[in-house]
């Protein structure tokens, strides 16, 4: 295994970390206006993610940074090629942060319900946009020999398959966020969310299977990897098993274990996508010769080595304090004067 392979693996792990962590706070945002009805419930919903959403979002920034450093040509192609989509991602990231920060700063009901709406719409939009982006990466993009993605308009990115992946992402994160809220809340709000989870789970299962079948019909590279190398099938199978475990634990009343099963499921889904894509990072629909792969897109040895030292020194701390902070704020949400 080369250093570039290792960085591919680390990148996939960081993205999986992002989806697991920011996934539940986006999910809370998606469910926010439906799950939380009274002002107190809405504050509980916000404060369930209050101390940690910032730290979660940082995983996206690190993912971007790692892509920039380890595979600069992919970063350049993807970010400039998906210009409009990424500008919208930025718009909703900022609006969402503003909504969380500003919502409870005034008593006015109109002010609060406005920011509640902004919070929810931004969360839905982010799940959709990131899902659509992943869908496009799986389906391939019109990558030219220069290393640029050449599209005539943003509509080229809104094809049916990526849109399906986008909608699936919304359902997936709503489920993930719902399981999180189940852990963090009590009383009527808890019961309400609890009642919806089976339907959310069913919806996600149907959409997820539809995505899988579609990749098979279109013969996308991500599918052929699993067809040609049966031992790789363990990744999607593990995701399916984790999905089963969610319901098994819930039936036993172990909400925290159910939420962790959902985390494991997301990890294996993202790992499956990574394993399926390998060794390609970006697939060109123009000519396979223009594909950006682990070997032709990686930074030079010196950079990858320096980065490895950074990762070896930094990542254990990152994991330690991510776990520490989540642990400290675990348990049901209690509002305090400092809360959002």
């Amino acid at each position, binding site marked *: 295994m080369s250093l570039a392979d290792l960085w591919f693996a680390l990148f996939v792990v960081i993205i999986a970390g992002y989806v697991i962590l920011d996934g539940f706070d986006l999910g809370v945002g998606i469910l926010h206006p439906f799950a939380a009805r009274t002002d107190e419930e809405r504050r509980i919903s916000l404060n369930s993610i*209050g*101390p*940690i959403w*910032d*730290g979660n*979002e940082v995983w*996206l*920034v*690190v993912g*971007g*940074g790692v892509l*920039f*450093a*380890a595979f*600069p*040509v992919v*970063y*350049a192609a993807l*970010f*400039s*090629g998906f*210009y*409009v989509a*990424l*500008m919208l991602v*930025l*718009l909703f990231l*900022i*609006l969402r*942060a*503003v909504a969380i*920060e*500003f919502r409870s*700063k005034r008593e006015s009901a109109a002010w609060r319900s406005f920011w509640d709406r902004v919070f929810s719409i931004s969360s839905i939009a982010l799940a959709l946009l990131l899902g659509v982006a992943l869908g496009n990466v799986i389906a391939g993009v019109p990558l030219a020999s*220069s*290393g*640029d*993605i050449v599209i005539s308009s943003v509509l080229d990115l809104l094809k049916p398959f990526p849109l399906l992946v986008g909608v699936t992402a919304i359902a997936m994160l709503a489920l993930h966020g719902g399981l999180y809220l189940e852990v963090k809340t009590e009383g009527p709000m808890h019961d309400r969310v609890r009642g919806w989870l089976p339907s959310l789970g069913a919806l996600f299962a149907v959409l997820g299977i539809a995505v899988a079948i579609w990749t098979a019909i279109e013969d996308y590279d991500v599918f052929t990897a699993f067809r040609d190398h049966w031992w790789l099938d363990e990744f999607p199978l593990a995701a399916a098993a984790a999905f089963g475990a969610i319901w098994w634990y819930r039936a036993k009343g172990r909400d925290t274990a159910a939420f962790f099963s959902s985390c494991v499921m997301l990890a294996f889904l993202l790992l499956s996508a990574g394993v399926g894509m390998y060794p390609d990072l970006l697939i060109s629909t123009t000519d396979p010769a223009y594909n950006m792969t682990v070997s*032709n897109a990686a*930074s*030079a040895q*010196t*950079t990858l080595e*320096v*980065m490895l030292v950074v*990762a070896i*020194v*930094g990542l254990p*701390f*990152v994991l330690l*304090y991510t776990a520490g*902070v989540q*642990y*400290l*704020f*675990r348990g049901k949400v*209690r*509002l*305090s*004067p400092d809360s959002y």
Partner: protein
Amino acid sequence: MNPEFLSRLQFALTISFHFIFPPISMGLGLMILVMSWKYLRTKDQTWREASFFWVKVYGLVFALGIATGVVQEFEFGTNWSAYSRFVGNVFGSLLAAEGVFAFFLEGGFLGLMLFGGDRLGPRIWFWASFLVVFGAHFSALWILMANSWMQTPQGYTVTTTQWGAQALMTTFKDVVWTPSFLPRLLHTWVASWIIGSALVLSVSAWYVMQQQHLEFARKNLSLALKWFTVLAVLQVFIFGAQMAIAVTKDQEPKLAAMEGNWQPRSCAPLYVVGWVDESAQKTYAVGVPCLLSFLSYGSFQATVPGLTQFSSDVWAPVNLTFQAYHVMIDLGFLFPLIGVVGWLSWRKRRDGQMPRPVLWAFVATVFLAEVATIAGWWTAEIGRQPWIVWNVLRTSDAVSPTLRTGQALASLVMFALLYALLLVLFVFLLDRKIKHGPERVSGEEQANALPNTIRELFRSAREPRAHAEEVDEHVAR
């Protein structure tokens, strides 16, 4: 209007707006650490109240800093993909290191700092805050290292790959220690601390004028004024001067543009105010004779380079660089003056009424310091033009080749509107916090009952909180 011009405008807008916040995160963070340290040493409740008050402001600033900072990381790829492709090996790794080391430290402990005030003991809260503030400084270190590499690049080699020319890292040590890195880092850190102390100074002077929260205001003013004055003096005579010397050594055309110097000349003056007529290649200005020669080279007779020594296609926008630079240094010289005069007047009339003009000058410091800092950033960045990487890559060759004018215009308008909204909300909420003022906090015995070591902290998290009802009652009110 073309994608390059619009992208430059967008980057200028987004970085300038972003750059309002990180210096406060560092500077105000330092002040909060000083205050909570003073509480730990003296058990004076005012300092505990003060640190709780400022941490609320800090949360607001930090949130905006993070939200606008993500934009910067994305823009390298979206608008400057040719640049990203070229420098990713070098620049990208510094950015990634910033993320891994610094952002996590800040993001991870910010929650403890912002929400932990009444849940954590004073000592452990101090250390949580310390980690956040340290993270903010560490973050600045990496990004300034990356910027310094763009100003004075070394430790790389340019190779042609399948995707065109790329700068590959040869020696990491050289990339870290580029000649302009250390002076730039120290100059920026000190500028940030000046802003932080200016913010405290400004708000407490306002309270003194309004005759509100007087005990809080006097103590805060006294503390902030000392820091502000000492830092402002050091900035002018040591850290700012060192930065100027770094430019003199490695970026001569930039130095010439900063001073609007067209012909090489000995005994060059340091201008205070002026106007550069770029078409006539003339600079109309007043200044101190021979001072630039002395400051740059240590001799009044030394020859300072002129723009005409260099080909005109490597000239920065001269007047803009000149104006930005002079706004910065004029304010830089004003700050020690405000500090020293203010200090003398404060020492004389500590218990009586300060002269109103002095108080107004104090109130103005934070705005002036922000202006000076952003002007300094402009000097560094505009003065670097037409290069994005000094003498290596031109800004015009760095823009995304696929970017279209309509897209760039739309995103520019989006950011302009979005940031206008953010600015209005920021000012509105900051104003409310300041008008609301500091709150009384629980007594010392209660503070001592809170978990004050890591072990106690984890134990208390495991047990149901003893004072949960009390907190609920407080919320109900």
